[in-house]
Each structure stands twice: as structure tokens, then as C-alpha cells.
């Protein structure tokens, strides 16, 4: 079993690439996945004795391709399938080793095609590019495993039957399609933020991959920077009891400096390009937070300016709520409360948490307690609930 972690590591790193290459060979995602899984099963049996080969990815891809050809030969009764199998052995087939970033990029865009349901895009991206198991994805998104499995089967069948092409869209389609891809990655990241941290790691890994493959798209850089800057605070975000620690109360010494530096460097690169988009601006906001040695030293004026810019580009109620938090710091809680009260987000726990905090600061503890309770009721994670309950109890102590 000594080699098992080695195989696990290769699996995490190379599964997506191997599937992407095999999809190009076979033109069918289901067949490609089976072939790659076959190859990893063979590796599990062989590598503990022979050791991990010098190019594990190349080994997996070659083995998977041979398995796929065998399988097609065995199962095919139609001439077309024979021809296909023969073509795979053609000497002018593209080399199967070395980095093939375009294959993974194509697969990302295929998984995030607008013709697929949004939940299917997320699940498929995690399955095919991240190599996460159906049960892992189901757990992370709190869906029953059979539901998720069915969703994946349906999505793969739609790609095959409807003829969703396996390619990066043309430039003209790119803003639309890339937007969908970035939304999927950020959704995966956010899911991990309050749930399974492995999803954050996976989203950051896919974000790095995309940034490497599309270095000229500033929003890709922006999203990666945003995720890195938020991820850097993970060690400070919960206390020893698993209670959420908000940004203002975090021990900044626990923040991961190397992630912050990487994120800030990317933000500076975005600024030089001067083609701001929502992800870049959110990254810039987080860069300002990361710059402050203490919460009190935060440059709220700068943050407010960035929120004004973000509001112009993406005038959503959630952006307005976040802007109100900046207004509270820069211009006082009364002004912020007015803004919050004009928003229509009744089921969003953060709104009630923000409102509770503003009421507390305006010395209206009874109303604040009610809002903390409402926020705790709506909060999705135990860490958040624990924090909100604690804030409410602190108020009780003050009023009695």
C-alpha cells in the first residue's frame, strides 16, 4: 500500500488531462472516462510492484487508449466502430505525452456549455476535470448521490446526443461562454468556502489551469486572484471551537502570506491591463483588506470606491449589501442601515447578519437580537450559526 498515495496524487493531478485527451480520441465522454478508469485500475495493480513510471500521465493516457481500442474491438459489431478503432492506431495520431492544455480547455468549455443545466455544469466540471467521485460531489452539494449520478448521466448523454461540440468557442462567443465557465469555478469555490475545503482547493487548481491556458483574459486572472486572496484567510476563519471568525476579528498573523502575495501580484497585473470586470474588482477589494495590518487600518474609502465601480458593472442586491457594509465603515451605520433596508433579499442570511450588526452599533440591542436570530435560522453552515448565536448572546448580556 506504500504506493497508494502516489497513485492518488497522480489521479488528482492527471485524471482531467487524461479524460480530455481520450475524449478527443474517442469523441465520447462516457467511453473516455471508462478507459481512463480502466487505466488507473491497472496502475493500482501494477505500480506497487513496478513503481510509478517516469511519465505517469503518459503511461495512463497510453494505457487508456489501448484499453479503449481493445474495448471497441471487442464490443463493436459495426464497421464504423472498426474504422474508428483502426484510426486510433494510425501512426499520424497526435503524440499522447507532454502537456496538452488545449484538450483540458476544450473539456472545460464543453462541461460549461449553456445548453447544459447549471447544476450539471458544476457537477460535470468536478467529475471530469477534478476527478472527484460522484459521492464526493453529492456530499459537497448536499444532493442525494443517485440524483447527482443521474444528473451526470443525463449531461453526458446530452453532450453526445445533441452534438455539443468539444471545442473552445469562437472569439465572438467567448464573453458569454467564458462568463459561464468562471461562474462555475466561483460556484465551486463558494460551495467549499462554507463546506468542504477540498472544493476550494479544486476551484483554485482549475482557476490556475484556466489562467495558464487563457493568460490574455483579465477576468480569468481576476477570478484566480479573488479565490487566492479569500483562500489565504482560511486558517483564521474559524476558531478552535469551529465558530466563524469574521474578517474584522481575524488574527491576521494566521493568513497565508504566499497566497496573498500571489493574489496581490495578479491584481496589480489586472490594474495594468485596465479592463476591469466584476471578478477583478472583487479581487481588488480583497487585496485592500489583505493590505491592512489591522482591521482598524483598512482603507474603507478605497473599498467604497471599488464597490461603486462594481455596482456600475454588476448592480445586484448582493453587491449593494456588500457596499452597504463599506458605507457603514466609511460613513457610519445609520447611512448603511438605510441602504440595507431598501434591499429585497429576505432569505439571505447575510442581510440579516449585517442588519443585526448595524442595529447593534446604533444601540438598538433588542432589534439586533431578533435579526441575529433570523440570520442564524437562515445560515447554511454550523460555523456561521455558532457565530451568530454568540453575537446574540453577547447582546443579551449587555441588555440585562
Amino acid at each position, binding site marked *: 500500500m506504500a504506493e497508494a498515495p502516489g497513485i492518488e496524487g497522480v489521479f488528482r493531478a492527471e485524471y482531467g488531462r487524461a479524460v480530455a485527451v481520450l475524449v478527443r480520441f474517442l469523441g465520447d465522454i462516457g467511453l473516455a472516462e471508462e478507459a481512463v478508469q480502466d487505466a488507473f485500475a491497472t496502475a493500482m495493480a501494477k505500480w506497487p510492484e513496478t513503481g510509478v513510471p517516469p511519465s505517469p500521465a503518459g503511461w495512463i493516457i497510453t494505457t487508456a487508449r489501448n484499453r479503449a481500442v481493445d474495448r471497441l474491438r471487442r464490443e463493436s459489431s*459495426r464497421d*464504423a466502430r472498426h474504422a474508428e478503432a483502426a484510426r486510433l492506431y494510425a501512426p499520424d495520431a497526435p503524440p499522447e505525452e507532454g502537456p496538452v492544455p488545449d484538450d483540458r480547455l476544450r473539456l472545460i468549455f464543453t462541461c460549461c*456549455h449553456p*445548453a447544459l443545466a447549471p447544476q450539471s455544469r458544476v457537477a460535470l466540471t468536478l467529475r471530469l476535470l477534478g476527478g472527484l467521485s460522484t459521492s464526493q460531489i453529492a456530499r459537497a452539494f448536499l444532493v442525494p448521490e443517485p440524483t447527482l449520478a443521474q444528473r451526470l448521466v443525463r449531461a453526458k448523454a446530452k453532450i453526445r*446526443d*445533441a*452534438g*455539443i*461540440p468539444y471545442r473552445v*468557442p469562437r472569439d465572438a*462567443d467567448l464573453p458569454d461562454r467564458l462568463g459561464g465557465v468562471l461562474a462555475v469555478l466561483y460556484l465551486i469555490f463558494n460551495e467549499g468556502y462554507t463546506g468542504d475545503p477540498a472544493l476550494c482547493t479544486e476551484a483554485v487548481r482549475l482557476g490556475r489551469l484556466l489562467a495558464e491556458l487563457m493568460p490574455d483574459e483579465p477576468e480569468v486572472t481576476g477570478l484566480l486572484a479573488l479565490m487566492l486572496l479569500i483562500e489565504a484567510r482560511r486558517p483564521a476563519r474559524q476558531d478552535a471551537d469551529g465558530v466563524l471568525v469574521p474578517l474584522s476579528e481575524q488574527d491576521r498573523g494566521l493568513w497565508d502570506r504566499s497566497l496573498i502575495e500571489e493574489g496581490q501580484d495578479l491584481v496589480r497585473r489586472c490594474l495594468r491591463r485596465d479592463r476591469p470586470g466584476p471578478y477583478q474588482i472583487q479581487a481588488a477589494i480583497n487585496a485592500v483588506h489583505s493590505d491592512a495590518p489591522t482591521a482598524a487600518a483598512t482603507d474603507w474609502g478605497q473599498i467604497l470606491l471599488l464597490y461603486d465601480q462594481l455596482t456600475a458593472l454588476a448592480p445586484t442586491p448582493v453587491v449593494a449589501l456588500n457596499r452597504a457594509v463599506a458605507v457603514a465603515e466609511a460613513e457610519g451605520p445609520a447611512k448603511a442601515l438605510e441602504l440595507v433596508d431598501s434591499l429585497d433579499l429576505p432569505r439571505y442570511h447575510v442581510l440579516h447578519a449585517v442588519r443585526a450588526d448595524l442595529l447593534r452599533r446604533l444601540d438598538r440591542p433588542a432589534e439586533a437580537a431578533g435579526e441575529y436570530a433570523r440570520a442564524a435560522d437562515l445560515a447554511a453552515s454550523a460555523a456561521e450559526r455558532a457565530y451568530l448565536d454568540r453575537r446574540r448572546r453577547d447582546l443579551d448580556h449587555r441588555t440585562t
Partner: protein
Amino acid sequence: MKHYLLSVVQPTGGQPPAPDALAEIMRNVEAFNDELRAAGAWVFAGGLHGPETATVLRPEDGDVLITDGPFAEGKEYLGGLCLIRAADLDEALEWGRKAALATTLPIEVRPFVDQH
């Protein structure tokens, strides 16, 4: 090449467009059909009379029963269809986009089962 069906989705009980607007829609639809023909993607296209003109033949005990009216009342019905050839879904969706703009109605794009 795959075949795709572009279905025109009509809302049941919707108001027909004013004559001027209808004339413009018909011109746009004809232009769309011409573009399909020029691109070699055209197989067949046509509009349908409303569901009140439909007759349903239902098999029953080895015989067939003829009744008036559509098979099922729905919020929407098939208002017309267009059969095209396209390399893949993206190409079919591009035609579907043009069809939606020409007809001013939702278009459903569905692949035909491949014929070998």
C-alpha cells in the same frame, strides 16, 4: 452532419400579432429560410395551423378511434417546424437564434437520432 428540429413554441391563447407586425414576421421568416437554403442547411420548414384544426387517431382494441382536437391541452403548442442539417449543436443553436429573432417566438432545438 446531424439533423436538428427547430420547433416554434406558440403560447396557447396568445394574441396574434397585428397585420403589419405579422407581415414583417413573415418577411423575416422567409429571409431566414433563404439563408438556410443558401448555406445548404435547409431540409424542410413550415408553419402549422392551430391545435383546434388537429385530429387525433387513437389505437383502441385493434381499432382506431378518431376524435377532434389535440392529444393534450397545453400551455404551449407546436406552431411550426424547421428541419436543418448542422455540424453540431453550436451550429444548430446559431440557426435557432436566428429563427427566434425572425419568428419572435421561443424555439426548441432537438437533435434527431443518428441514422446509420
